[in-house]
C-alpha cells in the first residue's frame, strides 16, 4: 500500500463515559484510496467516523493524520489539520444560499484564493452554479449532498470523510453520489466512507473494513469482499463470529 494518510489505532469512543460504542477499532487509509467501512445496523460505524472527526468523545486509542496525532483535536480544527467531514444528515446550512454555504467553509483559505476556489467547485459540480443564490434548504436531496461534498472539498482536505452519503436518497441520486465520489478520487482526493449500501460502496472502493459491535472484524480488497463468505456472516450476523481477527469474546454484550 502507498503512503498512509489516516491511521486509526484501537479507537474507543462513546457519548457517555463507561459506555463505549466504538470498542477498539483500527483502520488505515492510504493516499489516494477509497476505503469503505461497512457493518450491520448498530455496529457503531457512524460513531466511529464521528469520533475521528472530533464529534464523539474519544476514550482510548489514537488517530494519526499524515503523521500528526489528532486524537484530541477539537472538531473545529479538523479542516485546518486536513480532515473534512460530511455528516449523514443536516449537512448544509438550510437558510444560507448555496454560495454562502461554500464561503462559510473557506475560513482557513487565504482571502484572495477564495473566489477562484468557489469557481472550481462550481466547475466540478455544475448543478450548483445555477442555484448559487438559492437557499440551500430548497435544494433536492442529491444537490444537497453535492453541496455538502463541495463544501468539504473546498479546503483541499488530505482526506474526505463521509458518513453514509447515500442515506435517504432515491436510487437515481444514489448512483449519482457514488459516481461523484469515484470522480473525486480520480482527482487525487483520499476518501474514507461509511456506508449501509454495501454493494454500491464496494463497487467504487479500493479496500473495505467490516465493523461489528464497535470493532473492525474483517478487512479486504473491496472488489473481493462482496463475495467473501466471512463478510456475509459478519454482516448478516447469521452465525457466531468465528472469523474474528482478535478474540473479543466475553467482553461486552450485544450492541
Amino acid at each position, binding site marked *: 500500500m502507498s503512503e498512509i494518510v489516516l491511521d486509526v489505532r484501537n479507537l474507543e469512543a462513546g457519548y457517555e463515559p463507561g459506555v463505549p460504542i466504538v470498542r477498539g477499532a483500527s483502520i488505515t487509509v492510504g493516499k489516494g484510496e477509497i476505503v469503505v467501512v461497512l457493518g450491520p445496523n448498530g455496529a457503531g460505524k457512524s460513531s466511529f467516523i464521528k469520533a475521528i472527526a472530533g464529534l464523539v468523545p474519544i476514550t482510548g486509542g489514537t488517530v494519526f493524520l499524515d503523521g500528526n496525532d489528532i486524537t484530541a483535536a477539537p472538531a473545529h480544527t479538523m*479542516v485546518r489539520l486536513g480532515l473534512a467531514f460530511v455528516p449523514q444528515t443536516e449537512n448544509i446550512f438550510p437558510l444560507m444560499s448555496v454560495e454562502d454555504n461554500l464561503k462559510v467553509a473557506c475560513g482557513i483559505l487565504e482571502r484572495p484564493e477564495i473566489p477562484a476556489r468557489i469557481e472550481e467547485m462550481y466547475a466540478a459540480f455544475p448543478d450548483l452554479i445555477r442555484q448559487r443564490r438559492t437557499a440551500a*434548504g430548497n435544494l433536492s436531496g442529491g444537490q444537497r449532498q453535492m453541496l455538502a461534498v463541495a463544501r468539504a472539498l473546498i479546503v483541499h482536505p488530505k482526506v474526505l470523510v463521509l458518513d453514509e452519503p447515500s442515506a435517504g436518497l432515491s436510487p437515481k441520486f444514489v448512483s449519482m453520489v457514488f459516481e461523484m465520489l469515484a470522480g473525486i478520487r480520480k482527482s487525487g482526493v483520499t476518501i474514507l466512507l461509511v456506508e449501509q449500501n454495501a454493494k454500491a460502496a464496494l463497487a467504487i472502493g479500493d479496500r473495505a473494513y467490516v465493523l461489528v459491535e464497535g470493532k473492525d472484524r474483517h478487512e479486504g480488497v473491496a472488489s473481493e469482499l462482496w463475495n467473501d463468505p466471512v463478510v456475509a456472516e459478519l454482516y448478516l450476523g447469521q452465525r457466531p463470529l468465528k472469523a474474528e481477527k482478535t478474540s473479543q469474546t466475553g467482553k461486552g454484550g450485544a450492541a
Partner: protein
Amino acid sequence: MSLQFIVDGLLTGSMIGLGAIGVTLTYSILRFSNFAHGDFMAWGTYATLAVVSAIGAMVGKVAPIGPLSFGWPLIVALVIGMAFTALLALLLDKVLFARLRSQGQAIIVVMASFGASMALRSLLEFTFTSRPTYFSRAIQIAMPVGFGIRITPDQITLLLLTAVLVLGVHLLMTRTQTGRSMQALSQNAALARIVGIDVASVVRVTWIIGGALACVAGVMIGILVQIRPFMGFDMLLPMFAAAILGGIGSIPGAVLGGLIIGLAEAGAVQLIGAEWRAAVSFIILMAVLFVRPIGLFGVRER
C-alpha cells in the same frame, strides 16, 4: 390627528430596535432569552455618563456641537461606554452563562439571566441612586418640518446614527466571514464546528455586538428621555416583542419590529391615552405569537 407621533414612534422604535438586535442575536446564536439585556443598556448609559463627567472634570465645560445638546465628550464617552458594555457582556458570559450553557439546559440560563438582571440593576441603584439624571438639561427647540411635525437636531442625529449602525450590522452579518459564521452557528451548531468555525470566538463577537448596541440604545434614551437604573429593564418587553415580531435571528426584522412597536406605542398614546403605552407591545407580542409565530422575517425551524 397630529402626525407628530411618527417622529416619536421612529425614535422609540430606534431604541427598541437597537436593543432587539442584541436580543435576537443572543437568542438565535446562544439559544436563550437574555433578560439581562435591558440592564446592559442601563449600565452602558451610566458608564457613558461617568466618562462624560470625568471628561468634564478634566477639561472643563465643552461647547455643544452646532445645534446639538451635546459636545465631543459625549461621543468619546459613547465609544468608551460601548466598549465597556461589550466587556460587561463578555464578563457575564464567562462567569455565568458559559458555565451554565455547558450543562445544556436553556431554561437554567434564562433564569440566571433574570438573576443577573436584578443584580446589575440593584448595583446601579446602589451606586447612582434611583433618582433620574440627564446628559444635558438644555432645552432644544424643535424645528417644524411640515405636516405639523417637529423634530430636534438631537433626534435627527440619533435617527441617522441608528440607520448607520443597523446598516453596518446588517452588512457585517451578510457580507463578512464573521457574519456568515454567526448565521451558520445559529442554523446548525454541530455543522458549524465541522466546517471549521470556532464557536467560542463567534460567541464572543455576538456579545460584543449585542453589548455595544445596547449601550447606544441606552444612551439614546438618556439623551432623549432620562437616565434611570430601570431604563433598560422597562424596555425588555418591547425589545422581545420586536425581536419576535421581526423573526428571531433576523437583524432587519428586529429593527423593523422595533419601529413598528415604537410607532404603535406612539400612535396609541395619541389615540387612546398614555396609560396604554405599555400594553401595546404586549398586544403585538400576543398577536404575533397567535397569527405568525415565526415573525415577519422568520423561517420555520427544520
